């Protein structure tokens, strides 16, 4: 007897939902084995990673705060990936949003007023869009590969952020440490849950996947995204590929930029060198884990957010590497890709 894959006549909707669950279980198991192999107590590690953060309200709050930018970035990437526009540069667009949104605070720290915060958020979103417009333009005008151009721009954005936070935007009162001035109250997001970092930004972020869902389901834009599955059919329908590339990059870039400024004007409170903590890449995981369905983005973001908080917790309590979170994400996505084979194929046992 040997297993063979047999193509299903139609892809299985049930499996599309079950596969991420199978993948999460498999990833957990693999992680425990890895912990055991590296000489740590696996059950302790399991507790520190997955249970401890959920044992206290403040732990829940941390998970919510970490998931918020992931939900925003993931929702945008769902659209881009569905449109077959491989925007791998959410990281750079996130930084661009954080930087653009900080401009006002850096140069006019004294300003106050109710208009300040909305303007700052708008600047952030626009910053991400502008930064995403570069690869869009290069792709349309010069046929440049989007994967590579968005990726290279990630590194460029990071260099720019270093330059600003170590250089012209460094707060002189920081005693030589990098980082900008702190955001004043008028430029910071109001807290929703006192005593934690859960602020208005978290609420906004969790609305984004719903809005994206509605957009994809009911709008002409969403229809164009669906048809993008086949380039020839898009041409036949009279849709412009260039427009699709522009729109999906601007949308995903704008949401990533918004995620950036929401972090800076929220939990972080200033423009720092390490604001990104690889959220852009984690957003890719979230998009795929959601099976490119906007409604899946929220649970996926919460799970990956839990990984972030759990691995930070494990670092403190067990002295494990902070990279454990990233490792978990990688294993999870690999497991999901393996599990997804069941969406299109059936496993059959056949006589050898």
């Amino acid at each position: 007897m040997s297993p063979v894959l047999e193509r299903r006549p139609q892809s299985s909707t049930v499996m599309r939902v079950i596969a991420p669950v199978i993948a999460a279980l498999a990833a957990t198991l693999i992680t425990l084995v890895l912990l055991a192999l590296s000489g740590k107590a696996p059950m302790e590690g399991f507790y520190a990673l997955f249970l401890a953060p959920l044992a206290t309200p403040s732990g829940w709050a941390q998970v919510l705060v970490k998931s918020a930018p992931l939900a925003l970035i993931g929702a945008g990437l769902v659209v881009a990936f569905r449109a077959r526009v491989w925007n791998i540069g959410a990281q750079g667009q996130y930084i661009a949003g954080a930087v653009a949104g900080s401009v006002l605070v850096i140069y006019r720290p004294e300003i106050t007023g109710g208009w300040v915060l909305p303007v700052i958020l708008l600047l952030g979103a626009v910053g991400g869009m502008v930064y995403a417009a570069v690869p869009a333009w290069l792709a349309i005008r010069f046929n440049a590969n989007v994967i590579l151009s968005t990726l290279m721009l990630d590194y460029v954005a990071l260099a720019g952020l270093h330059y600003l936070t170590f250089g012209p935007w460094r707060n002189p009162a920081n005693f030589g440490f990098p980082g900008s001035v702190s955001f004043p109250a008028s430029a910071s997001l109001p807290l929703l849950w006192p005593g934690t970092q859960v602020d208005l930004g978290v609420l906004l972020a969790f609305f984004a996947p719903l809005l994206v869902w509605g957009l994809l389901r009911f709008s002409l834009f969403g229809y164009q995204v669906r048809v993008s599955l086949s380039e020839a059919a898009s041409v036949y329908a009279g849709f412009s590929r260039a427009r699709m590339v522009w729109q999906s990059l601007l949308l995903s870039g704008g949401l990533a930029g918004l995620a950036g400024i929401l972090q800076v004007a929220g939990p972080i409170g200033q423009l720092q060198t390490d604001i990104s903590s690889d959220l852009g890449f984690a957003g890719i995981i979230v998009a795929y884990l959601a099976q490119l369905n906007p409604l899946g983005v929220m649970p996926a973001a919460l799970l990956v957010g839990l990984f972030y908080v759990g691995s930070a917790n494990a670092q403190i309590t067990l002295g494990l590497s902070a990279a454990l979170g990233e490792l978990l994400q990688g294993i999870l996505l690999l497991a999901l890709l393996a599990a997804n084979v069941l969406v299109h194929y059936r496993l059959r046992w056949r006589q050898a």
Partner: protein
Amino acid sequence: MNAAAWISLLSAVVVAATPLLLAATGELVCERAGLLNLGVEGMMAVGAVSGFITAYHTGSAYLGLLAGIGAGAACGILFAWLTVQWVADQVATGLALTIFGHGLSGFLGHSYAGDTITALAPLAIPGLASIPWLGAIFFDHSLPVYLALFFVFAIYWFLYRSRAGLTLRSVGEDPAVAHSLGLPVNPTRHAAAAFGGAMAGFAGAFLSTAYTPMWAEGMVAGQGWIAIGLVVFATWRPLRLLGGAWLFAGVGVGQLFSQAAGLSINTYLLSALPYLAVLLALVLISRDPLRIRLNTPASLGKPFRAET
């Protein structure tokens, strides 16, 4: 600059191009077989950490290189298993591999942060190394530097002068036709992915055992991505990798030299230069869509599964 400075600059370029060349040669073979593996960055990270740990414990940088090659190949096989056997999306799998590799190298390397090892010793090639100028630039380096050059020419020969290379190109152009001709499509793709992984692992291990023989997380720093860009820049032709690798490495090395020379440009801004150079090169090379389409392996990134 005087002659000695030029020689040391060019010699540094040849060394700095080595990881790019190794990884790009592997990726080129992989893409020529139709597999777009975006996991080079992650496979390099895995190669780097396993190379370093092995060298640290055995005291042999050469064993470190072997360990890096093996670990990279394992990643490549994982990629092939998912994308060939289980028909997973190649873009997603590559990205997953990158994130996984990053995480794994951070996780394993955690307790080695800042540790050092004895670097791979240079092997001057007798006779050639004493040629003025060229000797110091090309023939006074560690083993991987020579191997990187060797592989470029070997792969050129393999692709265009051997039956196996012809088979590999056929598989990359049209796996359905290759399958119907009775060519071993899946085994070829597995082998190509394993080779690509091994070369990426080699490149990573070169970084950690020869280039900067000290463990620091994130030492790959985008070189895997640059290697993928290099393959496009070379329009999938092995010999053109050389020019591209030297160009990109040159920008990186030039940036370091200009800092040392006290040029008054901000270091952080300068550090973006290699990536901008890749971007610019990509734009220039891609401008003619016909050229890209003519040279891209036709099945690149597309899943293939034979009926049974």
